[in-house]
């Protein structure tokens, strides 16, 4: 698929890649939430043991981690858009963007720890 005369969907950096990834990650998150909801409903009554055993299989760990990675990417694009729209000074904007990346990366590491302690 070509956008305009020379730009390709698989090409480099037109902002299009992030736009597309925001949609792709949104779909991943939607599918994960649906799958999780089905698991929760079928595990009722949901006490501690039933809840923990949902996250014991490696498949569920992997799916949850992929959802967290998708969430981090999705939130990065969204927050970057917010900073770009409302924060004009370049220095402050870069600081906020950098902070967003570090914040999300830290959350991702934490998510890994939470999941693999189960």
């Amino acid at each position, binding site marked *: 698929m070509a956008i305009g005369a020379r730009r390709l969907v698989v090409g480099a950096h037109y902002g299009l890649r992030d736009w597309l990834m925001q949609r792709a990650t949104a779909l991943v998150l939607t599918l994960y939430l649906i799958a999780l909801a089905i698991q929760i409903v079928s595990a009722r009554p949901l006490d501690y043991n039933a809840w923990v055993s949902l996250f014991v299989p490696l498949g569920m760990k992997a799916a949850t981690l992929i959802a967290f990675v998708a969430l981090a990417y999705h*939130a990065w694009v969204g927050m970057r858009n917010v900073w770009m729209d409302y924060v004009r000074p370049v220095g402050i904007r870069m600081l906020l963007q950098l902070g*967003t990346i570090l914040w999300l990366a830290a959350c991702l590491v934490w998510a890994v720890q939470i999941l693999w*302690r189960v």
Partner: protein
Amino acid sequence: MSARQVIRNLSFGDLVRYRLPVPGVVSILHRVSGALMFLLLPLTLWLFDLSLRSELSYQQLRQVASGWFAKLVLSALAWALLHHLVAGLRHLALDLDLGVDRIAARRSAWMVFVVSVPLAVWAALIIFRVM
């Protein structure tokens, strides 16, 4: 000489008087809900951690979630997720050129509220253990 039309950006004071159409309301709430979930992500992770770490921490979670303020925050998070999800699906449809004309866009914007608000109310009722 005719008066030239001055084009300027909205100033902060204009926000109160500006009549935002429904799709605009859906759009700004999409942003607000997304930002809210981003800011409360550590809280969500902390609650997730408590829910999984041990039987004891699970009980701790129930304790934490029993206060009215915690229930309010959780309800806000539930609303944010539901609004963001439903409005996001509308965005995906718009990306596929579905319902881009003004009337259809306005109708689908109303549909977002028709779907997300009752779901959010339902979630809040469950959180407050009314249901």
